[in-house]
């Protein structure tokens, strides 16, 4: 019994050390490489940290959407990718997600997901061809999404709203 107890104590101590080492190991790449994926507070921070002006942000926001974004994640390597989440002013729930990526789109937790697609049409936007999807999310909420190619980036904007507001936001993106 004594052997088991002292063994358990030693084991617990070693596990605590392993956890600390893992935390340090997880931090090292962030300190080695600025472009490693991380959370940012503002759009300007992303632009400064990744030395890019490529990050597209809408200049038009409907009143119900809160500025600044509630979440900004971005990386510069192995390819540029960012995701911004915006919340609804009244309820605080995520209402708009803007993704921009040279490769795979960054996956956020509990994303806006169009569960029932009612319409999927091609949409001409500032001389570019986009794909507009209209449907409903969970709880039968109206949702819409649009995706297009902007140079080397794949842009995806998803919104818990009708396509009318969505297209206005997308048209204002620079």
């Amino acid at each position, binding site marked *: 019994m004594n052997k088991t107890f002292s063994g358990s104590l030693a084991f617990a101590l070693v596990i605590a050390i392993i956890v600390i080492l893992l935390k340090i190991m997880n931090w090292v790449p962030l300190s080695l490489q600025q472009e490693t*994926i991380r959370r940012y507070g503002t759009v300007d921070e992303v632009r400064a940290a990744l030395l890019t002006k490529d990050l597209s942000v809408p200049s038009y926001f409907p009143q119900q959407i809160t500025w600044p974004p509630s979440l900004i994640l971005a990386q510069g390597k192995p390819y540029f990718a960012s*995701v911004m989440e915006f919340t609804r002013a009244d309820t605080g729930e995520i209402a708009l997600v803007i993704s921009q990526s040279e490769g795979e789109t960054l996956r956020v937790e509990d994303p806006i997901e169009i569960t029932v697609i009612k319409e999927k049409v091609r949409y001409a936007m500032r001389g570019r061809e986009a794909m507009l999807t209209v449907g409903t999310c969970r709880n039968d909420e109206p949702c819409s999404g649009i995706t297009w190619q902007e140079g080397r980036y794949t842009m995806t904007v998803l919104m818990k709203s009708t396509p009318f507001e969505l297209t206005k936001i997308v048209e204002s993106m620079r």
Partner: protein
Amino acid sequence: MNVSLKETLVANPWVMSISSFFNSFAGMYVAQSFCHSLIAAVVTNQALKAWRIHDPLVSQRFRFLIILFPILSFPFYQMINPDRGSTLFRLEALFDINRWLAVEIGGLVPVALLFLLLLALTSLIFFFQEMVPVVRNTLDSRQPDEDRALLETGPFLENAAQTLGIKTPEVVLIEDDEPHIFSATGRDPAIFVSSGLTKALDQRQMEAALAHEMGHIARSRRPLLIIAFILRIIMFYNPVVMVKFRKAIRDEEKICDDIAVTLTRDPTALASALKVFYHKIDEPPEPQTSSRPPKGSIEEYSHNLLLESRIQRLESRSMDRSTGWGLPFVVTLLTIMVLNYYIV
């Protein structure tokens, strides 16, 4: 859209392909199973040390955790929490391997490429050192050999087979001056002994060596062991699993030593029999007198690696039996499960 200020931000197509792979389900499975097995290995080693577990039978059970756990861990965790792959979860995880894979050494060579090379090298070693000998051995043992000479072993083998509850194997003599002994564990088990070994060992030592092989034959009938050995193939690319699998095989040798000692009640006989093989390693290589390659390469490989510690163990008679290992095993398993959940 504005033009980027920094040209280096333009991603390399092949770097993007590697990155896309590690973001796919298959890539995440490969990368996370590697991390999970590494953590399982570290935790298991510490558990064996902390609870002073030296019994090879128990150590082997702990090592099977390292081999089997990563096969199912990733799909299991994803089933519990599908958002585990999200960027936010990864950012807040205890360890995210993708952070390391995205690092570029000197701004040129991505760690992901080196990691892929490590996996490819492990796969090649697995194929040539494990799969090819096993397939060759299986094919060889299926070929009927009408002219094979059987070795007379007296009542010892029958008694031992009865004790172990297995069919008495045939003992086949191979004409070879090198000392070899190995067993074929199929439906009709057999032990193959080289003529060189029959000259090198006295009767006591030969019985101990045969008892060890009987141990292998008896253990090869355990379904859990068979399943573990088959499932190990899924982790062919995993270097941690490869190392730990080989350690599990070494444990198997010690387990069979214990079985042999139980059957012969003479540990020194087996220790001195093993010295025949041990001395063979130290001596300069002699010209091969036989063209027949040694069978059971994995087994022989582990024999050669561990002969010294096996001899010491037998001579010091430190074949301790661990009791009450159930709680440490459960604690180790739970620790591995909880830690690895936060390792993505």
